[in-house]
């Protein structure tokens, strides 16, 4: 701890000196956002990498390894948001500079890089992580060094931290409304769960099972199966599906397994126009690999689809495609990642400071009206109030929104009765 403090102090001293040197100059310059910026010493009391013109944040995702498939979209969205914020004059008059680190799909590497960003680079916030495992690895580091993490992925819940803002949905937000919808609208009675074998599918399915068994009438789960990550042979489980004939196949298969699963499902003659399949793991990103023709007819429960029809989203999609190419698609997590820098900017401006403690305290109640998914608000538990939507997969790889929850759903990371 001693070393940490010392380094912080000397850096702080340097920054104060620089701030004093810059002050007289600022008076000579024409009135710009820069000149109006509050003094660095005032907005940064903990020695973060904030100068009079710049503030540094970290981007921490996997650019290599198996998770690069999923995390690329998040990196792109975060870069887009930072660029847009900078174009609007930055945060508290300071341009955002980002340092990108590669977690390489390896959890210890994530922890190592998070520590590097906080201890060496003194970033004011980190936009990053994708899998629960990487977040779990990073969390102790973030808490120890008092950093701020904006985490974009929909996840299993059961977590809450002063140092993390969860911009994706936690499991109850994503699942409960959708289950209610499928039971009410489609008259579904029986469910079959198929997931990849790790914590997110297992916890999500547990919540779904409790909801189906305890909170709804006449519905039941007729099967539950998990496969190792990367599994590519689903014929046996498809046979079981044919025999049990569930009303709804409820899946949270991830990664490469997804592709195999839907291709084999289609090849086995399970027609998704007749058989209801509901997934909580397929976004537009995944469809890119699966192929729209293989999954058309499936229902996906997300808070965001690229096809959402609102002005915010149209603007966002256009900007994203302009920056990253016409062919890129935008999934739920990509949009949630896009929220991170914006929410941070607004919180910093509300708090009038880059200090993590002040941001953590000021986060409650931050509203973002320009979010592509519509209006969102940060809850006191650091998750977002958001709507949930059910999209029907189309052949072109897009979703048609068939249901949207009427109100914002309250995030509930530790749901009573679901554990």
């Amino acid at each position, binding site marked *: 701890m001693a070393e940490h403090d010392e380094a912080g102090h000397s850096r702080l001293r340097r920054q104060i000196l620089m701030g004093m040197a810059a002050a007289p100059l600022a008076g000579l310059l024409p009135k710009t956002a820069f000149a109006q910026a509050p003094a660095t010493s005032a907005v940064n009391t903990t020695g973060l990498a904030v100068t009079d013109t710049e503030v540094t944040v970290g981007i921490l995702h996997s650019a290599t390894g198996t998770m690069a498939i999923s995390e690329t979209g998040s990196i792109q969205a975060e870069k887009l948001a930072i660029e847009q914020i900078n174009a609007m004059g930055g945060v508290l008059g300071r341009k955002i500079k980002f340092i990108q680190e590669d977690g390489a799909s390896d959890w210890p590497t994530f922890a190592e890089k998070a520590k590097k960003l906080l*201890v060496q680079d003194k970033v004011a916030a980190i936009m990053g992580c994708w899998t629960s495992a990487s977040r779990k*690895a990073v969390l102790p580091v973030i808490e120890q060094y008092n950093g701020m993490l904006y985490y974009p992925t929909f996840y299993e819940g059961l977590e809450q931290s002063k140092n993390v803002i969860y911009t994706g949905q936690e499991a109850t937000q994503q699942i409960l409304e959708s289950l209610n919808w499928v039971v009410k609208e489609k008259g579904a009675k029986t469910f079959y769960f198929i997931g990849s074998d790790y*914590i997110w599918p297992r916890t999500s399915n547990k919540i779904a099972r409790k909801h189906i068994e305890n909170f709804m009438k006449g519905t039941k789960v007729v099967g539950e199966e998990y496969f190792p990550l990367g599994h590519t042979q689903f014929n046996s489980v498809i046979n079981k599906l044919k025999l049990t004939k569930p009303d709804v196949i409820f899946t949270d298969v991830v990664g490469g397994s997804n592709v195999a699963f839907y291709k084999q499902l289609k090849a086995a003659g399970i027609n998704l126009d007749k058989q209801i399949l509901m997934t909580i793991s397929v976004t537009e990103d995944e469809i890119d690999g699966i192929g729209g023709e293989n999954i058309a007819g499936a229902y996906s429960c997300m808070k965001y689809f690229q096809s959402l029809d609102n002005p915010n989203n149209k603007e966002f999609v256009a900007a994203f495609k302009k920056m990253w190419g016409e062919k890129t698609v935008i999934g739920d997590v990509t949009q949630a990642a896009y929220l991170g820098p914006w929410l941070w900017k607004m919180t910093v401006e509300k708090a009038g400071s880059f200090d993590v403690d002040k941001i953590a305290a000021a986060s409650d109640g931050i509203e973002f009206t320009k979010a592509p998914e519509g209006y969102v608000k940060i809850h006191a538990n650091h998750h977002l109030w958001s709507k949930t939507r059910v999209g029907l997969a189309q052949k072109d790889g897009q979703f048609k929104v068939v249901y949207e929850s009427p109100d914002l759903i309250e995030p509930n990371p530790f749901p009573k009765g679901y554990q």
Partner: protein
Amino acid sequence: MKTAPSYMDRKDLLALAVVAALLLVVFPLALDGFRLNLVGKYLTYAFVAVGLVMCWGYGGILSLGQGLFFGLGGYGMAMYLKLEASSVENTKIQSTPGIPDFMDWNQLTSLPWFWEPFHYFIPTLFLIVLVPVAFALLIGSAMFKRRVSGVYFAIITQALAAIATILIIGQQGYTGGVNGITDLRTLMGWDIRTDSAKFVLYFVNAVLLIGVVCCAMFVRDSKLGRILVAMREKEDRVRFSGYSVANFQIFVFCLGAAFAAIGGAMFTLQVGFMSPSLVGIVPSIEMVIFCAVGGRLSIFGAIYGTLLVNYAKTSLSESFPELWLLGLGGLFIAVVLFFPNGLAGIWRDYVQPSIDRVFKLRSKDPTDPGHDVAKAAAAAAE
């Protein structure tokens, strides 16, 4: 006494002194807390690499499943720390207080039996070494007694590492699944997350590593070490000189497993969690390359190789994440094709002779693998 293998000759002592000075003096003085902790993490892999030098370099047994032992050691320590972090008081919001949080999420209502011994520190320390050694003994007895060796052994150990990963991920109620065992806080009430604790742990780690190195050197310089070399060359001759080759192979495999397990336990202490991503095939093969880069016959080379590769990995992936895999892949190929004896070979062939010329020291044994590689050390110290 012209030939007696006095345990550690002058050159070895010098090399040991250089390593000790580097680890105990130079690094702590030259590096800030963050970098020092990183070096500490790398050094935990060096335990595995030293074990591989014994197994692979001397014993001729290439194990692609060292991650399994590293993981067993690491999980042992993590289970102890997790239980300490899951006191009834800390976990009172759970439906079953007093068990680790992930068990509670998975509807476990009591602690599984195999977690029980990890309530106590001393049994934990024993189990950290004994469990991996028992596994190694089992695997080794089954395979070496039946003369499985070389390629087949490599592939089967690789499969074992893969099975272990699937099993750990699949049994998440008992193991923490893909997330691993996280959020470890204290060791007998001592907060291991603080910078001062990390500093202390670094030294514990370094001293243990030096101890393991001495142990490896003792084995290497004993008659057993020469029998290993002999076995690697002419297995049958050794067998027909009255030795049970399998027993020696089992011994050295267990030794490698024990070293790896110690490394794993130190990893958990320094990094603060353990996860299946350190058990699988990829980390196991990476550890082999640390050893190969250092020189598969050089105990000291293993340390320098580990430091060098990890230093390259960290710095390359900080500045050019895309190039890192190309660099690592290229390194594998280059080492195999051009430097089969790794850094130690380069030292022996290029550096040592010029030093010898300067100091007019006659190298006593031309085939003795090279020892300290000051250049690599300097690079790693960056």
